[in-house]
């Protein structure tokens, strides 16, 4: 694992912690952006240059912008006081630890001695990665590709529908969904 890989991993980890433990959602959004960029870096270290670029464009660019937009729209202050108490962190640690504990040993046992096959570098380089992925996507995975476009369409329509509906105030006054239509 190259030096750059370690750097990017460290940044990603730090940013991840930042996302979770930051009081102000805005700051956690920014640290998420940093984390996404670090991941892009890692992809390129692994040789998936096209993915790195798409990561930056789609993830960091589009999705995080949307998130920031929503954050700004709702101008949320930082969480009002930490009502976490001791239960939640303990449970969280338990969850995190259990996820790692169950999967990691299995993976280690399985793959510890298999070295990363150095793909014929030329395959990636010559086709610059993009050509190879393009052939894959439009070749074997064409059906999935079309389906994903359908998913996107539905996503858009859904978002519009959700936001168009009149305001239904559930809050304590109304008590129940029968608000003014």
């Amino acid at each position, binding site marked *: 694992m190259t030096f750059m890989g370690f750097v990017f991993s460290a940044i990603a980890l730090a940013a991840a912690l930042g996302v979770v433990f930051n009081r102000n959602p805005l700051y956690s959004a920014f640290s998420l952006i940093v984390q996404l960029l670090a991941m892009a870096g890692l*992809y390129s270290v692994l040789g998936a240059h096209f*993915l790195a670029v798409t990561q930056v464009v789609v*993830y960091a660019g589009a999705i995080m912008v949307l998130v920031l937009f929503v954050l700004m729209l709702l101008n949320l202050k930082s969480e009002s006081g930490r009502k976490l108490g001791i239960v939640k962190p303990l449970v969280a640690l338990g969850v995190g630890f259990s996820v790692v504990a169950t999967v990691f040993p299995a993976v280690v046992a399985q793959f510890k001695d298999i070295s990363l096959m150095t793909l014929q570098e030329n395959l990636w380089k010559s086709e610059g990665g993009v050509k190879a992925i393009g052939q894959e*996507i439009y070749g074997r995975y064409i059906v999935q590709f079309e389906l994903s476009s359908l998913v996107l369409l539905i*996503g858009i329509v859904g978002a519009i529908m959700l936001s168009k509906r009149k305001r239904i105030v559930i809050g304590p006054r109304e008590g129940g969904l029968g608000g003014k239509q």
Partner: protein
Amino acid sequence: MSSIVTYIGLSLVLFAIGAVGVCIRRNAIVVFMCIEMMLNAVNLAFVAFSKLQGNLDGQVAVFFVMVIAAAESAIGLAVIISVFRSLVSVETSDAAQLKW
């Protein structure tokens, strides 16, 4: 040491952190972001394995994951906004009407 273990280890930790974030944070948007982070962890694993296997299937999977993540974020944020509109708060604990 260019074995895949470190990458998988990293993606696992990221995934765990995302999971912890989802559990702890009460703000819906932060939860949403943590989910995104978990997705990224998985993408990393995909790419690592694609490199290990030497074919591009992993990378195509990541590509599709990104597409899905995009659609999901659109819908997720729309939901969060409509929840905010009716509950005037984004705390997950406030949207607890659907209980026994």
